[in-house]
């Protein structure tokens, strides 16, 4: 769907130096969109005819409000495109394609564990809302640069959801000092009721034994830096916990027509195949993703 989204809110999110923005667009996209999908936004008011920057920018849906006819996009000013986008004012119209791609799939029952790195948190909020609405229990693991970032990027909103939250920061200013994957690993151990200093590699067999019980209870969804998602996936695979990952790639068409945004997966037969992040994703089963492949 191609629509002209009306800018109804466009504001700084948290501390100015975090360069985060909240953009609410009014339009019919809200009617059909779901968590994990994204839109492709033209960064200048659609009445301006400029071909520089040329391409639309993919931004995830952070919130979908079908009743208000509104979608919320949260983004970080990263380069030229988002810099220009940040200048859009209320009342302007931005050309928006979407909703695009396939979102996350919620499990029927059990726990949904969200693992976010940095601004990877943004698409997970819509997912948490859907999951809670469906009666799932949700748990968040979130790592960021520092306290200022986490607070700016919407920690309060998350806390308002009343779910268990595990935070960590690189500098230790909030939550644990370190990586979110360590917290995830700890919690996975705990869920297996395995304690002690055992290295992950040593418990693999034990984990496998326990796999049925845990994999039926927990689903992991993750978004963040590729490296982080890779470790999250490896951890989950060790515990036979299904994991959904939201990938990013540079996009041209955003509808599957140009093959610009492929990622490499391994299919059932063990063959390497390409899938399109825009059309087949951005959410994939972590187990299928070939993380280090560059073919």
């Amino acid at each position, binding site marked *: 769907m191609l629509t002209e989204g009306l800018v109804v809110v466009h504001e700084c999110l948290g501390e100015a130096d975090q360069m985060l923005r909240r953009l609410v667009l009014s339009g019919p996209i809200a009617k059909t969109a779901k968590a994990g999908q994204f839109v492709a936004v033209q960064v200048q008011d659609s009445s301006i005819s400029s071909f*520089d920057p040329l391409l639309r920018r993919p931004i995830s849906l952070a919130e979908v409000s079908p009743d208000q006819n509104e979608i919320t996009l949260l983004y970080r000013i990263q380069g030229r495109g988002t810099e220009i986008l940040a200048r859009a004012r209320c009342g302007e119209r931005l050309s928006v394609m979407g909703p695009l791609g396939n979102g996350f799939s919620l499990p029927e029952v059990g726990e949904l564990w969200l693992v976010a790195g940095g601004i990877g948190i943004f698409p997970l909020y819509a997912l948490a809302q859907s999951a809670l609405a469906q009666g799932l229990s949700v748990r968040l693991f979130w790592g960021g640069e520092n306290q200022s970032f986490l607070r700016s990027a919407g920690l309060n909103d998350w806390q308002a959801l009343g779910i268990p939250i595990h935070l960590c920061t690189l500098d230790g200013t909030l939550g644990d000092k370190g990586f979110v994957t360590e917290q995830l690993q700890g919690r996975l151990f705990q869920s297996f009721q395995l304690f002690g200093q055992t290295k992950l590699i040593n418990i693999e067999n034990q984990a496998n034994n326990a796999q049925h019980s845990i994999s039926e209870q927990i689903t992991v969804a993750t978004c963040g830096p590729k490296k982080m998602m890779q470790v999250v996936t490896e951890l989950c695979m060790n515990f036979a916990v299904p994991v959904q990952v939201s990938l990013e790639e540079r996009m041209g068409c955003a509808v599957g027509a140009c093959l610009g945004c492929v*990622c490499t997966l391994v299919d059932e037969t063990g063959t390497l195949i390409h899938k399109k992040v825009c059309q087949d994703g951005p959410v994939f089963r972590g187990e299928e993703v070939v993380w280090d492949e560059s073919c």
Partner: protein
Amino acid sequence: MSHVDLTTELAGISLRNPVLTSSGTYGFGEEYADYCPLEALGGITLKGITPLPRLGNSVPRLAETPAGLLNAVGLENPGLEEFLVSYLPKVRRMPTAVIANISGFSLEDYERMARALQADSGLAALEVNISCPNVKHGGMHFGTDPRSAEEVIAAVKAATDLPIIAKLSPNVTDIVGMARAAQRGGADALSLINTLLGMSIDIEQQRPLLANTFGGLSGPAIRPVAVRMVWQVAEAIDLPIIGMGGITTWQDAVEFLLAGATAISIGTGNFVNPQAPLDILQGIKNYCEKCGMTSVHDLVGLAHKA
């Protein structure tokens, strides 16, 4: 109620209108269905295929440049066999003219594909890509040497009863010489232009941005080069031209028609505006009406006559 005849004859094919979409930017015809109904288009050109399946290049495959796009997809495609089995049957049901685009790494590659694709396949024509700049030792050779270009077109022409469109590379000293070679080879029409060879460097990483180092430059940035080549070839050679390279608005399309293109094709412009083909078609129609023209064909090459 329109009084403008938009139908376009090209290489013996009858098109509903002169607005096509370009190979590699419009998938296999279905991806843009939500944005632009196929039956509104004059035709579509499918993603380039090769005899064997190809995974193409690593990512990043795309880099944005000022008013342009670099791509190095590397001819990812399912291969001829899978194309015949899974895609061709759909083609028959598509409510518009469908042009297949073939690429190869040897004369035999091209011949083999041409033999497999005949008029009874439901295809309207075969576009022969002798210009893809992304594949090492690939199409580039055929696309820059007139003798090879003539050979490959002649081989394809002999192998199929479909009309042949030769798609030329702009990365040559003498585009007219290449067009003449294609004509000698028996091309029924020419597609002008493919992408300009370019590259871009990531100054943070201090290495080429595209995994493939080089990529093909497309989009509005290259339009002046494309219009010039269409103009030069139209002056020199009597073959219908499908003009492309940076067309994003109806004004751009009219520019190509005036320069001598019989039809126009939209590539990167679809990424900018997925309804570009519709907007452009409407714009061409309005322009003809404003000029008091009864047929879009009256525009073709008009700027040469002034």
